[in-house]
């Protein structure tokens, strides 16, 4: 379970780096096995919320608990452990390593734990139409192809929660349908929770909860 308690900007930071439109001082709860949709207009703080949950931002007050642990009390190794086994993410800006091939990017995630078989990763890549692109350098791929690759990378390691930050912005309907199918399968097999950040729609996900920023 992920719980955000009374999150608000930290006054020691000179600039208000957390958007004002966030729902401060409220309690947000995300349960494992359930799907949540966080929506807001552009610039409304959707990505900021995911970054706080993922431990990338520390410029806030309040408490963030992941499975009973206060994230601000964890050291960098413990945060790494959560990212390695508990939470997976597809960033809006993808954060792929452009100099590496598509497969090397996937292998970087898969080899972290080795819990997902190589064949499974290849099969996931094939289901999103990436089978012929695996040996291609990532920086030469289109943004849509990179977006699909980032989704497969996020699924190539174990997780209890999957965070998706505008994951389908450059995909056509067919690819969105395939991606949603694959993600739903993985969520089910992992009994994992989903936090989908999108200002458009819930796509093919059956949402259990919704937060509007």
């Amino acid at each position, binding site marked *: 379970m992920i719980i955000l308690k009374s999150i608000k900007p930290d006054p020691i930071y000179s600039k208000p780096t957390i958007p004002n439109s966030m729902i401060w001082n409220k309690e947000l709860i995300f349960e494992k096995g359930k799907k949540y949709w966080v929506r807001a207009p552009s610039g409304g703080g959707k990505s900021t919320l995911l970054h706080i949950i993922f431990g*990338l931002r520390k410029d806030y007050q309040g408490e963030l608990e992941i499975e009973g642990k206060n994230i601000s009390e964890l050291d960098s*190794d413990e945060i790494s452990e959560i990212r390695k086994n508990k939470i997976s993410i597809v960033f809006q800006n993808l954060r792929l*390593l452009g100099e590496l091939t598509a497969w090397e990017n996937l292998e970087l995630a898969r080899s972290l734990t080795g819990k997902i078989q190589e064949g499974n990763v290849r099969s996931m890549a094939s289901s999103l139409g990436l089978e012929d692109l695996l040996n291609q350098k990532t920086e030469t791929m289109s943004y849509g192809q990179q977006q699909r690759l980032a989704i497969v990378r996020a699924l190539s390691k174990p997780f209890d929660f999957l965070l998706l930050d505008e994951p389908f912005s450059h995909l056509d309907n067919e690819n969105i349908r395939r991606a949603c199918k694959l993600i739903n399968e993985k969520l089910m097999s992992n009994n994992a929770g989903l936090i989908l950040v999108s200002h458009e729609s819930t796509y093919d996900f059956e949402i259990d909860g919704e937060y509007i920023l």
Partner: protein
Amino acid sequence: MIVSKLSKGKFRKLTYISILSIVIGMFLLLLSIQLYLDWKKINSGNEGYAIVNKPVNILNTLGFDSGFNEREIKELESQSFINKVGVFSSNDFRVSLGSNRLGFRTEAFFESVPDDFVDVEYYRWSKYEDGDEIPIILSADYLALYNFGFAPSQGLPQFTAGTIGMVKLDVDIFGNNRVPGKYKAKIIGFSKRLNSIIVPKSFLDYANAKHGSNASENVSRLILEIENPNAADFIEYISDKGYELNVNTAFGKETSILIKRAILLITIIGLLVLILSVLVLYLSYRLIIEENVEKIKTLYTLGYHPKSMAAAFSKQAISIIVISVVSATIILQVFHYYIAKQINGIGFEINGWLHPITFIISIVILIGLIFLGKFFVNKTMKNKYV
């Protein structure tokens, strides 16, 4: 995998430069240490010893003795800067040395000193008993004289210090109006302290009694064990007495100073190159880490531990250091083996293997560089993942 994926292109060039410079620096540093140890070994054995004699004058030419009497020897023994006095005894018979197999024979002489003044391994210096092979110690200078003077002129083979011990010598003694004698002898070592042909005192006493004229012994030379042969009070005393002093060193004083300075210079150059090479290695890692900050952050978001990423970089840095230091040590070993071979050929005796101290210093530097490498990488990686 992570590091190898990140370290491409110019970093590889920097890696090769680092390896090469560490090899050169380590080689020079270890070479200077080994040279110093070799020089000390060559020069050892005669430190703290001096040989004195009375100057030869016209009376000696006319047949008068010029040796030391008992009172003079006692006076020398009583001096605070002299620890021990040893008497050179000489043969009271004519002797010739030769080898029928090699086809040479030469007139010779024998001298002896008390056993505790002998600078070869004691186990090779046995007490003589009738019928034994006579162990002989030659001055180290004689081997060079033989190899580069006598042997070429006589068409005889040259010898190293090691191989000459395999030659059996025939010793013929022609007694002074007494019985002649035939003996076997073997050269068991070369002395840097005793500039003579030395046989055990037990043999010389035995042979003088058997083949000599029983004339009273003329002590022409003394060997002194002293704290410092260059001490002013010692030099002044010897000078006042009118004795001649022979401090036998492998290298002259000026040469020794020159050698010491050359070794010091090599040490400084080696240290400088080593420091610069470590700096190049550090800058290489700093460069690769700085250039890959975003990638490192991405890996961190995937779940890679900062420590494991630092460890991956450290592992590569340590590999570079280990390869470089081991290579430098191996190259030095090969180099030293050939140098030792050359030096042994001219009468000095140094081991072809590197001195254990050189190996120990190599290991100590290796461990130091490993810690330094890890420190550099951890320092640079710190906070790069946030």
